[in-house]
């Protein structure tokens, strides 16, 4: 095999997510009454990045063969926190930003500590911490309200040079600052290795605990960036349980659409971002076709099922039936 075919094999899952997104988005703008305008793209990307950040967070944990059911709640908690703190003068706003991101990191670190040192299963540990984070959010905002530094909010949800959505630029910047170093560090490599085969990773003497801890902690950070953006769009904080749960579940769907294996060890954040954008577009398709919103969950479910089934074909090649269960 030549070099480019290896590259293709490595990127196949990500490219597929890009393809699904491109197709969906094409159908979307082709049928949108306004067509492809800067405004349509801006609205779509502003909606999309919220899920994209949460899906990025989920990806990091899923790569280690774990799962984080608290990402949606960290997202909500940081939204509520931001609606108190990210206000006032430039100085106050900056401090507020750091406080919100720091809270996200701390939530993620707590998840990581419980999973690694408490040896609890990620699914249970993060259900519990998720409930705690939501409880804190409720204490912060028993009723929807608060405000945000509107200058900053408008800048980050607006357009650069009247054309490029600023939220996409931030998303790209976060990928560059968080994902690229992580994926190319020994820690990130270890995250993949322990997700793929923890025994082999241990035998190879790589820092498994450090990698898992980093994955959960960075997941908390990414979810809090998502929470900040939610505040920038809505100008308020709201402890909405349904919304938190939906984001958690959608993040898992987006991750799978993006070609990240729930068994761990495979996939990338880039794929998950496109998975998230595609998932959002699928939902929006119904509006341009003027269907009733009632159809949205059913429609999203069917599309998701089809996309996920594509990954199951490998099972037909298995020769020893015991491998079905391995």
């Amino acid at each position, binding site marked *: *095999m030549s*070099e480019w075919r*290896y*590259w293709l*094999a*490595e990127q196949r899952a990500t490219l597929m997510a890009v393809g699904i997104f491109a197709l969906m988005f094409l159908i979307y703008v082709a049928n949108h009454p306004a067509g492809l305008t800067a405004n349509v793209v801006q609205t779509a990307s502003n909606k999309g990045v919220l899920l994209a950040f949460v899906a990025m967070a989920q990806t990091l944990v899923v790569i280690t063969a774990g799962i984080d059911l608290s990402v949606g709640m960290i997202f909500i908690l940081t939204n509520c926190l931001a609606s108190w703190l990210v206000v006032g003068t430039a100085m106050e706003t900056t401090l507020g930003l750091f406080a919100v991101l720091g809270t996200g990191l701390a939530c993620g670190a707590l998840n990581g500590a419980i999973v690694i040192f408490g040896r609890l299963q990620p699914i249970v540990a993060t259900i519990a911490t998720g409930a705690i984070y939501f409880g804190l959010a409720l204490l912060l905002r028993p009723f929807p309200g608060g405000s945000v530094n509107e200058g900053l909010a408008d800048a980050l949800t607006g357009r650069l040079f009247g054309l490029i959505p600023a939220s996409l630029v931030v998303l790209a910047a976060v990928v560059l600052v968080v994902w690229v*170093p992580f994926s*190319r*560090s*020994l820690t990130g*490599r270890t995250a*993949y*290795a322990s*997700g*793929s*085969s923890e*025994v*082999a*990773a*241990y*035998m*190879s*003497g*790589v820092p498994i605990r450090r990698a898992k801890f980093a994955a959960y902690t960075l997941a908390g950070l990414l979810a809090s960036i998502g929470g900040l953006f939610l505040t920038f769009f809505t100008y308020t904080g709201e402890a909405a349980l349904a919304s938190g749960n939906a984001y958690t579940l959608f993040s898992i769907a987006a991750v799978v659409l993006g070609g990240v*294996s729930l068994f761990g*060890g*495979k996939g990338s954040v880039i794929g998950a971002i496109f998975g998230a954008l595609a998932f959002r577009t699928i939902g929006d398709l119904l509006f341009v076709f003027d269907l009733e919103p009632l159809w949205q969950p059913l429609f999203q479910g069917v599309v998701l099922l089809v996309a996920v089934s594509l990954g199951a074909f490998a099972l037909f090649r*298995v*020769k*020893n*039936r*015991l491998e079905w269960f391995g």
Partner: protein
Amino acid sequence: MEGISKRYGGVRALEKAELVVEAGRIHAILGENGAGKSTLIKVMAGVVSPDEGRMLLDGKEVRFAAPADARAAGIACIFQELSLVPDLSVADNIAIADPPRRFGLIDRRAQRLLAEEALARAGAGDIHPRALVRDLPLSRRQMVEIAKALASRPRILILDEATSALTAADVAKVFAVLKRLRAEGLALLYISHRMHEIAELADECTVFRNGRNVESYKAGTRTDAEVVQMMIGREYSNVFPPKPQRSDDAAPPMLECRELGWGGRLRDINFSVRAGEVVGLGGLDGQGQRDLLLALFGVLRGTTGEVLVDGRPATIASPAQARSAKVGMALIPEDRKTEGLMLPMTVRENLSFAVLDRVSMAGIIDREAEERLIDEMVQLLAIKTAGIDVPVGALSGGNQQKVVIAKWLMRKPRIILLNDPTRGIDVGTKQEIYQLLRRLADAGAAILFYSTDYDELIGCCDRVLVLYDGRIVRELEGSGITEHALISSALNVEAETRGAAA
């Protein structure tokens, strides 16, 4: 190494073992299955900690808490169970422990060069560094494993059955590499069951038996027969039931295989088992015995050849068909924890799974009938349990194994396949299992029995089929089943050696 001991539960894997390895030499370690070789190298590689004894490196005492410590000390190990990560590329795997970095990030170009160089050193330049390990066949993976060990520039290199998955051409390449490494001043520790490989490579040999080093000698100073003698050298400690004299009967064999094959792992398997017969499967671990049992039980897909039950061709495409009344087959699996039992569930639940269809009417379980059957089994096998509603996980290993056997006996199978059923259980339970096997055979069952313990094969079996490399290489019968014959045919050494040893 001085006086290293390691116990697993009550089982002693190593007992005051000693070993001296010198730089610039290849030191071979020999011994039967379970002689303690693997435990010894796990201690050296930092995978397990010894209970007592100490390790000296260049005269200084060292302790390894994790594999990373051993690697830092310059010890690289190529394990039987591969330590490669399947979803990473070959290059990623080779450089996994300490990839080349620039500004803290992995430098992929440097890593690529490093991987290419390591693959070339291992004589595996044909493997593409970007290929995923998951996509490589076993023999290529093994070469990657060797390249990975070389990439860490070790001072001591341990190879545990590193050639067992390799083709002859690869073995030649690896040998050339090992000889070059010896010339470069590395200390090599080579563990293999293949006598001719050891004869070609080793400078020194140490024989292990029952967790102790029995003797060390210069390579070439002992004959194969003497080595085999050193590997055995123990008295029989198990009591076996007498084997009945049997006359040839005209009935067709209960189970027969004709030209059975599966991929490259099983080839030309021909044999038959009659009612009342206990037939053993011998040979070294991993020569296809397990695959053969799984193939018979309908677990493997794509098998070739024919299986006959009662002289008639039978299609067994799934475990459900294998255990159907027409075939009446049972497989007592090797790993009772994953394939045989649901540990958190009770004895009752585990036992009745196999017979739910027999004790239920229209989908409702008849608790009384269930209880009667279970009581019968618990008594037949003398399972020591506080009651049938105790979780199986709370029983001892031997009693757990009895529950597995009972579970399958409840269906009254006619053909019983056993995959190393006595591994890791105590002597008393072993004896009960031997007697049970013989009773079942006398009651008319056909039994196929794989064991890694040669004593068992000798004591229990009417005939023994010795497998090597997925093929039956020898069939031993009656008084021809001796330890010498088993070991020498398992090692596939020359016929003359057998004569000399006998």
